[in-house]
């Protein structure tokens, strides 16, 4: 095994498929959770007339600028055995949220929140308000208007939000390391795996893993942008 940084071999046979599988599970869980959680938050951000709404928008955007260690640190504190929330979790499940798959999911949801909410809210805000008014004058409840008018006309934004939060979770590192540690099969994701390999000088294994992750993320993003472009080309008349 060579230790040169310039000629790194590919260690395909050494890939940790368990880490890939775990990462995929995490990304699916997080993006689905963000679809459910992000829609009402985005709806509120797009349509609320509350004057202090911008404060909420700033909170949602925080994970973009904060180092993941800050978020991870506060999560550890908030979910640890010394906080009310942590004690509640322990009394329910018998163990702390830290260093579990559940802890990873919670941390990743918070960390990827803006990547789902912002595209959702942007597409809601760009809708023609008269369409929503028309739905209401035709007797539709806000929920029905949401399901039959807002969601179908915001599909490109929803797809973008879900895909971005999915891809962002695939590649996250700091929060996972802080909250989850490195337990194979429980919290050892692909990014931790790569870090671990580099630490132990397994460059060829790191190389193969990193390349695979990059190609996968690229393919996913290309697919999303391609699909959205097609949606846009079918319906460019919507205002």
């Amino acid at each position, binding site marked *: 095994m060579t230790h040169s940084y310039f000629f790194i071999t590919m260690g395909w046979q050494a890939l940790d498929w368990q880490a890939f599988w775990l990462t995929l599970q995490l990304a699916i869980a997080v993006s689905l959770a963000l679809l459910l959680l992000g829609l009402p938050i985005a709806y509120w951000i797009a349509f609320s007339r509350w004057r202090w709404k911008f404060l909420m928008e700033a909170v949602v955007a925080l994970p973009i600028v904060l180092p993941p260690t800050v978020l991870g640190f506060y999560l550890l504190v908030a979910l640890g055995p010394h906080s009310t929330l942590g004690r509640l979790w322990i009394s329910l499940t018998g163990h702390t949220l830290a260093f579990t798959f559940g802890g990873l999911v919670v941390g990743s949801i918070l960390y990827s929140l803006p990547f789902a909410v912002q595209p959702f809210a942007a597409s809601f805000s760009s809708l023609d308000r*008269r*369409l929503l*008014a028309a739905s*209401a*004058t*035709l*007797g539709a*409840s806000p929920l*029905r208007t949401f399901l039959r008018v807002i969601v179908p006309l915001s599909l490109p934004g929803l797809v973008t939000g879900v895909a971005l939060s999915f891809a962002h979770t695939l590649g996250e590192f700091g929060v996972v390391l802080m909250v989850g540690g490195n337990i194979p099969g429980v919290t050892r994701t692909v990014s931790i795996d790569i870090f671990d390999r580099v630490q132990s000088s397994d460059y060829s294994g790191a190389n193969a893993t990193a390349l695979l992750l990059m190609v996968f993320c690229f393919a996913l993003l290309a697919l999303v942008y391609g699909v959205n472009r097609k949606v846009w080309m079918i319906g460019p008349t*919507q205002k």
Partner: protein
Amino acid sequence: MSAIGKTDSVQASALAARFRRRTPALGSSFVLDVDFEAPPGFTILFGASGAGKTTLLDCVAGLLPPDLGRIAIGNRALFDASQHTNLPVAKRRVGYVFQTLALFPHLTVEQNVEYGLDSLPQPERRKRAASILDSFHIAHLAQRPAREISGGESQRTALARTLVTDPSVLLLDEPLAALDAATKSKIIDDLRAWNREHRIPILYVTHSREEVFALGERVIVLDSGRIVAQGTPHEVMTAPLQETVAQLAGFENIFDVTVDEIHPERGTMVCRVVAAVAQDALPFADHSDGGKGTPSAAPTAHRDPRASAPEGPALSLETPLVRASLGSPLRVGIRAGDILLATSPPQGLSARNIIGGVLISIELRDMIVSAKINCGIEMDVHLTLAARDSLQLAPGKEVWLVIKTHSCHLMQRSELLSVRLSS
């Protein structure tokens, strides 16, 4: 939406509205303050853009809350500030066709029309939709996506989508503004036929004078958030308009006049010009309302057209008949573009006002030539470049002005204006 099931039980109740709403804006704020009743049938809401027509409809539909007042259909209150009643939009049963129509672009024509029938079982929904699509002549479009149909088809679909829900009141915000006259009148015929079976109040917003006469059983004239006149089209549209900044905006020539003669049999009056109103004092808005009087003048000469040579302020104008008494002070507005200019005394014209004068000055503004003529008072006339060249106009030249009776727009001379100007 429980009443949807009972098609013919819709009560023919009037819409009664008395409310006030202040819309804050930068610098100033817009106040809508109205009190009116719209019985079953057409009621036209007429006014220039910015008069508050759409805001009024939005308040009735519940899209905007008034600050105080009451809006009711029959004895069903939609909004009542004193009772803290404010029915949600979806519960008001107020049909509203927007200026932009707001068809759902991702649904077919049929799905659009069925949208408001959600509470009905599927077969009943289908039946209702098919029937209304048929009566608005768009049955063949049922399966087409709404974003692919033409303008006229969109208007019909929007009307059908709203009417199929059996609303208690129908609000139409210039839904036909973009259509050609033929298509428009066909749609209006269909709407009238529908209204004969469903006697509900229809509030129809327009800024077109022709539409007021074509449609109106009743007219409400809105200006700057207030109702300035209401009645039949004839009563309202022939009464001297309330003079406001908005109305003055379209007129380059404004004169104070007194009524000298009234000829009800000819539908005209003779007004003597007292003084020109200094235009520099008027803060003209940059828009003018497109409505012009319907041209019709009975050619019965009673005055030597050449009698009023440039010899002093003894200038009289023949104007349309309005409700006014002899000697009453009015104001006349004449658009500079409505005046014809002749270099020799014109003969054999239907126009009633032929006034001699002398050209004072001529200047080019953009592509319009503005000529000032002294005919006792000063008049501003707009010409094209070609007209200026072919008439060989130059200061000092003797000219004749030709003004149709219906180009003289009468307004009430109000003291209100000076208040507005100072505020």
